[in-house]
């Protein structure tokens, strides 16, 4: 598998990023007026308050906002891990708003990948077994070459037999990315992927995610992959194609091709 060189970040103030390979292609993930509330009665908290947003294929969007702004809830609703109280969620062309558990399981198997802040590798399994796990769960034919290639892509070809506790944090996160990419999902959801890493490991992880977005789809003509990333880190957010800002459950801003400093400044004004 080869990846093209990272494209240069769009300068500040440019028009919105291109909408995938074809302007007619549906977005990989779309939220339409999504409302999510927690609790009941006087203690009700509206985590998402009518959010509409589309994440096109072949793009990388960072979601930012102060604590409690609803960014994690947005990620959970978009990934079908949490149910929207109102509105619609469409993932890979399927409306999953009221989908039964079996449909969601199937969706997670075939179309979605996850990368977490705390890596979430299965401690009992080796790196190779962790990467192979989603395929085995999907009962797909296990292709050892794909597994090894995925590990080689993240620079861990020689660590396949190691268990997570024998790897550094950065290495564990790379295994997690290899796991998420081995099945070539339509959408990769990342929850603070660099949150527990030193700056050098974080850079490596961000470079890997860039390669994911920029590589072409698995088959000719199939859409490229989409990355949705929640983060606190302006440097990580600046690596994405676009940054959206949430406050009190509402989308309040969107920057395209911004620098880390621009992102940090915007975030600081939101937190005031």
């Amino acid at each position, binding site marked *: 598998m080869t990846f093209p060189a990272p494209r240069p970040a769009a300068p500040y103030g440019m028009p919105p990023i291109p909408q995938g390979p074809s302007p007619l292609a549906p977005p990989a993930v779309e939220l339409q007026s999504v409302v999510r509330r927690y609790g009941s009665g006087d203690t009700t908290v509206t985590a998402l308050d009518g959010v509409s947003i589309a994440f096109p294929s072949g793009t990388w969007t960072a979601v930012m906002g102060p604590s409690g702004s609803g960014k994690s809830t947005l990620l959970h609703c978009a990934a079908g891990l*949490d149910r929207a109280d109102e509105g619609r969620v469409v993932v890979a062309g399927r409306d999953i708003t009221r989908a039964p558990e079996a449909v969601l399981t199937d969706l997670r198997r075939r179309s979605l990948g996850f990368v977490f802040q705390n890596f979430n590798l299965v401690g009992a399994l080796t790196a190779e077994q962790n990467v192979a796990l*989603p395929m085995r769960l999907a009962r797909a034919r296990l292709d050892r070459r794909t597994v090894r290639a995925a590990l080689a892509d993240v620079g861990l070809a020689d660590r396949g037999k190691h268990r997570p506790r024998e790897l550094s944090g950065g290495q564990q996160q790379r295994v997690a990315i290899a796991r998420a990419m081995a099945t070539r999902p339509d959408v990769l959801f990342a929850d603070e992927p660099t949150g527990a890493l030193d700056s050098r490991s974080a850079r490596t992880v961000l470079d890997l995610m860039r390669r994911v977005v920029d590589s072409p789809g698995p088959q000719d003509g199939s859409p490229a992959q989409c990355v949705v990333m929640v983060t606190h880190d302006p440097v990580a957010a600046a690596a994405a194609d676009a940054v959206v800002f949430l406050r009190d459950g509402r989308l309040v801003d969107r920057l395209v091709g911004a620098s880390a400093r621009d992102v940090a400044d915007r975030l600081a004004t939101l937190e005031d």
Partner: protein
Amino acid sequence: MWRMSWSTFRERWTLFAGALLTVVFGVGLVQASIMVSLGAEDPAIPAGTSPREAERLRDAYEGAGSLLGMTAMLACFLAVFIVGSTFAFTVAQRRADLALLRTLGGSRPQVMTLLFGEAVLLGLLGSAGGILFGIPLMWIQAYLLTSTGILPGSFAPQWDNGVLIASVCAGVGMALTGSVAATVRAARVRPLEALREIGGAARVMTLGRWIWGVTMLALTALMVSGEGKADFLGAMLIAMGVSFAGAIGLSSLSPLVVPLAGHLLRPFTRFGPLAELAQANLRDGRRRAAATAAPMIVLTALVVGLMAMLGTQAKAGGADVKRRIVGEYVVTSTGADAARIASVPGVQAASTSTVADIVLTVSRTEDGRRQKKKVRSGIFAIDPAAYQATHTLKPVSGTFGELRGRAAMAGPGSAEDGIRTGTTAVAEIGGRKVRLKVVARMPATLENNADAFFVPRSLLPPDMLAKAESETTVKVAAGTNPADVANRLRDLRIGKVETVSAWADARVGRQMKENNSVMMVLMGLSAVYAIVAIVNAMVIAGTERRREFAVARLTGLSRRQVVQAALLEASGVTLIGVGLGLVVAFAALGGFLFGPSGTEILAVPWTLIVLIVLGAFGISSLTSVLTTRSATRPAPVTLAAARE
């Protein structure tokens, strides 16, 4: 999925160690019981044994068989219980892992397959261990049965290859049954829990616990409220019911009840910050406290409740016997010597019961069907007139006067066997068969091994009467000092002279000893399981708390203080567990207080209670210190940062 089951099993073997041990123990017991039962099924009766002795042996084997069946059943039940709590624990601990599996595309059936896979592995490993362990266990069981006199020394258990299949089935069956509830719960883990750190927030009080616990406690309350109106038999049933229902109810509700009882320990928090921390942890760590206290509640309630009930029954029987005797002394001698008692000066009446070494075949009616029954023991030859003079018990049908010639009378021991007056009984007396008519029937008494049948002395050949063991109840004439009569009786040198009270107490003592030997086997087994369950819960909880302990140390506690605080908490839980168990046991005995003898007949097994309290505190303290020390071995900084 199977490979993953295996990896998890290997990775988390410490969690499964307790469960594995119980399955090994359970399979071993089932196997040993099967083999001993096989040996007892076709008893080897030594050549030259008299028919009466052979019959006694067969009865003994039958009794041993049912005792072993009971231990095997109990072993299975308790193993399922412990496997269940272990799996519940591992699922609670692994919620994040299971949620991750779901996030990565694992379906509910796949999660269930994973856990059932672990259960099958546990079962197979447990069976393998149990098959090996069952062999020495079989010899131990055989030794226990022969040394306690339940079976003769010639007994040998039997090996059969079929038992291997039974052992594997038992092991896998126990593990699978035990894991069902936890597996179903695991399948309900939502994928979102992998992203949010809410693993620990899982509910401890499940709906099943609520329903089961509240129903059982309501039943207990109902029975306790009925204690004032119950007769002795009712009080016995209530005691048994309350022991079981109360133990199950309180242990089901233990996540609720134990922290609540923890409030009672509040006065101890004045003794310093460690005591305060321990009390707070006890109330906060509901799952942990409940899992440790529940087996203590069950064990204490059942062992103390049932032991006290059986002891009380024996004592009540003794009190009943004493009440029904009009006389001061009982002389144990041969039949020939007993004949001399009546002529001793100062003896107003002497009634001799001589053991009749005969076999009676009686017809009994049960559920409208007539059946034959052979009676071999508890048959006594009496003189009806003398008997009436020293005993107050009157027949419920027929009279003492009719007990003459070829007649028999159903004693209190066969009052509930459905024997009717007017029916015929066949007696085998020294090889000759004689047809007897049942002329009278006695009412039931509280004594467990009461006299079964009375026959007239004239029925037995004189030499048989002369040699047989006899007990003579002596009534001293008015105006005579009983002690003088006792001395005169002792001067005859014909046998043992006891006061009625001492004689009855000895009878009670014999019965209690009999109870104890059976209860010891059953309760010893339950105690082993309770210990495994307690240690298991504490070890699992200890490993879970590494991070908590590390944080406590970073806050300024020394390692020693952490160990002390955990020890205090464990002692608090033990106090609550044993205390609640004793509450149930004493509630179970309430019914006896309202009987005719009041507290006099209450047999509270104080030695047993002291043993249980010491044992519970010893085991929980030792386990607590060892697990806390091992959990606090690494430097606190490395653990405080780690995500469990």
